[in-house]
């Protein structure tokens, strides 16, 4: 059974305690966006065979949303992290690369230092 550690309450939660929420870090396109952008935001999914970032909710626990990095082939969990971040954190990237040296992030991160700062300021 899949076990994820909730970064909000620290509990190691079994799959039956958790509700899956699909792909993480989607960029939202709303009113004013093009049809293609809106369609791709709503429907197009990476659905990768390998490293995947996804949303989970600790539904039968603290109730908070969080994010997890997982391998969809080996079902290995690389780590979990707070939902309030626009990209996977440097610690998560390091944890993945420690086990998958060939894996590279496919997002363009503005700068390593600023990734978590705005999100942290939202919650604290």
């Amino acid at each position, binding site marked *: 059974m899949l076990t994820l550690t909730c970064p909000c309450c620290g509990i190691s939660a079994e799959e039956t305690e958790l509700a899956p929420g699909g792909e993480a870090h989607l960029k939202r396109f709303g009113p004013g966006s093009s049809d293609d952008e809106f369609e791709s935001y709503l429907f197009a999914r990476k659905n990768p065979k390998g490293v995947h970032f996804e949303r989970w909710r600790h539904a039968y626990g603290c109730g908070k949303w969080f994010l997890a990095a997982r391998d969809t*082939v080996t079902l290995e969990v690389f780590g979990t992290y707070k939902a309030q971040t626009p990209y996977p954190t440097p610690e998560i990237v390091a944890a993945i690369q420690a086990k998958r040296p060939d894996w590279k992030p496919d997002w363009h991160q503005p700068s390593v230092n600023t990734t978590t700062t705005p999100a942290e300021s939202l919650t604290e």
Partner: protein
Amino acid sequence: MSASPSNSTGKYSVFAIAREAMRLHTGWKKAWTSPEPKKKYQVVIVGAGGHGLATAYYLGKNFGITDIAIIEKGWLGGGNTGRNTTIIRSNYLQDPSAAIYDKALKLYENLSQDLNYNIMFSPRGLLMLAQTEHEIRGYKRTVYANQLQDVTTEWVTPHQIKEMLPIINIDGPRYPVLGGLYQPRGGTARHDAVAWGYARACSAMGMDIIQNCEVTGVETANGQVRAVNTAKGRIECDKLAMIVAGNSSVLAEMAGFRLPIESLALQALVSEPIKPCCDLVIMANTVHGYLSQSDKGEMVIGGGTDGFNNYSQRGSWHHVEETVRALVETFPMLSRLKMLRQWGGIVDMTGDRSPILSTTPVGGIFVNCGWGTGGFKAIPGSGWAMAELVANGRPGALAAEFGLNRFKEGRFIDESVAAGVAH
């Protein structure tokens, strides 16, 4: 692995059996050949499961296109075609679904004769149990829709169900049986035989079935497909059909586009064989369980999907537990059965629970995917419609509503009520 003449497969008949009995069965030929790939084909189909093989078969039969390679990364029919619970039915809610699933059912009815291969089609009747008030309303609505679609289904009462199926407990405290949606023409078929029968027929038409040959890349130029790179080298093609179920997103990424698909694990299990006790196919969607008895006597049980992306062909244990727990209440006699085997397959889920048969952003590439938890029943209809799409470059009436553009245009074919769980 050398190529042998494509006409090596003789016709199967009672006379062939008698002839072979006389010579100690030394004359049977391989049902299909295993050639090395040629440099170029008119059509390359990725995926030698039921849908891929059926597409190839109807391309040959209906359109005379036989310069086809069917490429498979594993063994023929070893994905979801060999992992499902073999249920065949066409009692869907929406008109486009009823059309393609009923086309499939009609083709299944004569498929053994058509392929000269016994697929053991058994139209024993299919019953979907209503166990909540919501399901009563949902299934009655489906009965009315089916009447308009010329698909014969009927609403049956708990009393009738008990008569049809004495092993059922209709007044369970948690999951009482409140009625059911019955399709007399529904049933099962031998899943492997469907793949083998199509493969034999394709091979006899001169098509190349290439197993153990994973696709590693898709070559395009000026928005047009050129070739696929495989474990057995580069193969050029004019047209490429991707029919790979749970691996659709992976192949689409090789070709440079994304699909509205999530790959999830779906599980099934079979019991030890017992004497005949259940001559219907039963689906209980509230509890995510479905049940039929195989010819060998095993109870074949299907469960629900996991909630997270998975390519491992292994599912979560608690889903099996939930399914069995609920089925035991509805069928108390099952509680004494030992389960022999349990397995998982990777299903390709779309948001509206309807398939995708479509052109793609790349010229010459066509996709057939998104059958999710219910692809087996659709194999002949899917192949028929896909062959039309690949041959003409545009969908015919059966596939027209199932294009990728329906997501952009908001024209969903919502089957999440009629078939939202495993089916």
